[in-house]
């Protein structure tokens, strides 16, 4: 379990470091894409370990635990935000949640007729 957790922690920290460096490089005071970098590292390392045959249940468990905590954490986050001030702009959440989806159905229709799936 702790091996998987350590691997996850390594990917996370290394990804955040890259995000900070990229932010510095671009002159923005922000972590730029650190989460995305970390996800890519975890994917690559997992596939590397699998190829080497050292990826065990133990590894998977430590990571899977956090994977499953993800929705509960989002719940805690949603309940601790300044929702009251956001409600006045709630119409935006409705519009942005519905209109782009309708548009995307159209894009899907065009795409599927342009590139035929195998």
């Amino acid at each position, binding site marked *: 379990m702790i091996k998987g957790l350590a691997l*996850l922690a390594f*990917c996370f920290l290394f*990804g955040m470091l890259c*995000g900070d460096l*990229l932010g510095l490089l*671009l002159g923005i005071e922000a*972590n*730029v*894409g650190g*989460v*995305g*970098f*970390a*996800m*890519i590292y975890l*994917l690559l390392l997992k*596939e590397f370990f699998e190829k080497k045959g050292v990826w065990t249940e133990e590894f*998977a468990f430590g990571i899977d635990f*956090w*994977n499953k*905590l*993800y*929705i*509960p954490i*989002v*719940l*805690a*986050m*949603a*309940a*601790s*935000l*300044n*929702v*009251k*001030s*956001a*409600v006045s*702009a*709630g*119409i*935006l*959440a409705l519009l*942005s*949640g*519905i*209109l*782009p*989806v*309708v*548009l*995307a*159905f159209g*894009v*899907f229709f065009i*795409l*599927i*007729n342009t590139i035929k*799936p*195998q």
Partner: protein
Amino acid sequence: MGLIFALLWVGVLTWATDILSKKVFASKIPGSAIAIGIALVFGYLGGVWAEGKQGLADLPLFKGLAFLGGSMFRDFAIVATAAGASFILIRKSGLLGLVSLILGIGVFFSAGVILAWSLGYRDAVSLCTLGAGACTYIVGPVTGGALGASSEVIALSIGTGVVKTITVTILTPILAKKIGLDSPGAAMAFGGIMGTSSGVAAGLAATDPALVPYGAVTATFYTGLGCLVCPSLFYLLLNWGLG
């Protein structure tokens, strides 16, 4: 103590919404989307009761929610979800999978930014966060957290993502036949364009359960790619576009 109480609260909420999803919505709407919607309602009530800026977490008993739902745990858990994806599978989805991912993130982000702009938002950080929220309810807060957006804008971006999940869930089985969503390849492209994993999974399950794993392959990548490009490339483009 606060953190432990937060775990209890989150667990009870998940349990209750699971039952609600099965009994009232016949499993048609994903339990996670309902749960996040209810959590936002609690955030609102907390704001009314405590008159603070941290929703329910401003009540002493619920303080732990801000810690559990803070950026550190959130980003850590999101990274862990990448272990469920696989490059080998995404390679199998081929050109169509790749094109659909790029188109999907591009379409949702730009549409989200344009709508936010037309409702009066003008700063690049808020616009970027709201555009990211139109991608998924995860990409929104990750982007907003990285760029330092206000709590109010982040709440709005989550709300947008939740509405999106529900819209995809409802529209998918209705439109599937008309748009040619009937093969594994098409399901992969669909997952890449729509992105919201829970919405795609629930929508495909109501269309044809055999398609669910194919849609999930690309949808898992969508969040990762969104977290990568929204606070970086897209933010820079927005900043440049706004002068």
